């Protein structure tokens, strides 16, 4: 059981089985770690904003860095029109980041290593951005599929290509996060298994790899959260500032 590198991704039920209209909505280890991440974010931000000093303490400083980081990212990529969406993008970034980071603890579960979780988030963003685009521009939003300056003969083909490109957004967004997290954690587990099977004599090499990979995984955890948030900003920018 413990040597199977994919065992860490098992989702199992905690507590009683709950079914509503044939859909299993029982509390699982995945839900537990989602709650843990959300709770950790709340505690971290509450501690950070408890004392609002002019010269910030350590917690307040870290909270302010996160705030500035996201605020700067939004204004750089999507402009001032995207200011009202700051709370959403900030929550999204913090949730993905904390889920990734909580997954780095031994014996914990990585919520974002399941494609269903990342796909639901990506689909929500995709639908929301499309709806925002239609609300802001009406049917003019469809111009995003018709680039200007294209010969009439090529227009149907280009439009189909543009539509596929648009539809591929949630897929690439979710697959990137899921694949990165799953591959990294599987690799960590495989190298961990090598340490045990090679024993005291040969186990040092995979152990050193494991240490290096842990560092890399922490970088990837941060980077993927960042990429997820910045792509949301870019999609939002396309919807808010139509420039095709």
């Amino acid at each position: 059981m413990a040597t199977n590198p994919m065992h860490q991704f098992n989702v199992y039920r905690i507590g009683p089985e709950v079914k509503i209209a044939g859909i299993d909505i029982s509390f699982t280890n995945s839900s537990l770690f989602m709650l843990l991440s959300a709770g950790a974010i709340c505690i971290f931000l509450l501690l950070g904003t408890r004392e609002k000093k002019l010269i910030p303490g350590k917690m307040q400083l870290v909270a302010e860095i996160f705030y500035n980081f996201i605020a700067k990212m939004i204004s750089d990529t999507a402009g001032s029109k995207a200011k009202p969406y700051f709370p959403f993008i900030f929550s999204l970034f913090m949730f993905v980041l904390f889920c990734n980071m909580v997954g780095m603890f031994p014996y914990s579960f990585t919520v974002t290593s399941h494609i269903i979780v990342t796909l639901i988030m990506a689909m929500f963003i995709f639908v929301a951005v499309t709806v925002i685009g239609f609300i802001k521009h009406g049917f003019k939003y469809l111009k995003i599929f018709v680039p200007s300056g294209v010969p009439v003969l090529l227009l149907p083909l280009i439009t189909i290509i543009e539509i596929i490109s648009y539809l591929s957004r949630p897929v690439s967004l979710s697959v990137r996060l899921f694949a990165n997290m799953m591959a990294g954690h599987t690799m960590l587990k495989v190298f961990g298994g090598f340490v045990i099977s090679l024993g005291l004599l040969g186990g040092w090499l995979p152990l050193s790899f494991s240490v290096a990979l842990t560092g890399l995984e922490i970088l990837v955890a941060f980077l993927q959260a960042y990429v997820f948030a910045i792509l949301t900003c870019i999609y939002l920018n396309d919807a808010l500032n139509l420039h095709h």
Partner: protein
Amino acid sequence: MTNFNDFKTRLKIAKSNLKKTDEDSAKEASFLGNAFKLGTELVAAVAVGTIIGFILDSWFGTTPWLIVIFFFVGAAAGMLNVVRTAKRMQK
């Protein structure tokens, strides 16, 4: 108080240096993020194109043809995605 102006300019220089390094590190992080992005951009569009072809095929009963056509259209869309991402990286 004779050194007051001197201190002000030193503070200004320190602040501008701080700003510069901040921007540099943010840029580097986003380059790495963009590098991770390119691969999935290409694959995702090919996958979506193929799936659309598969669905249309089963609707119209034209089995291998639309899936083949939409595979190549999806590949074109993937290249378009990659070119766009690369252009955004250069900005």
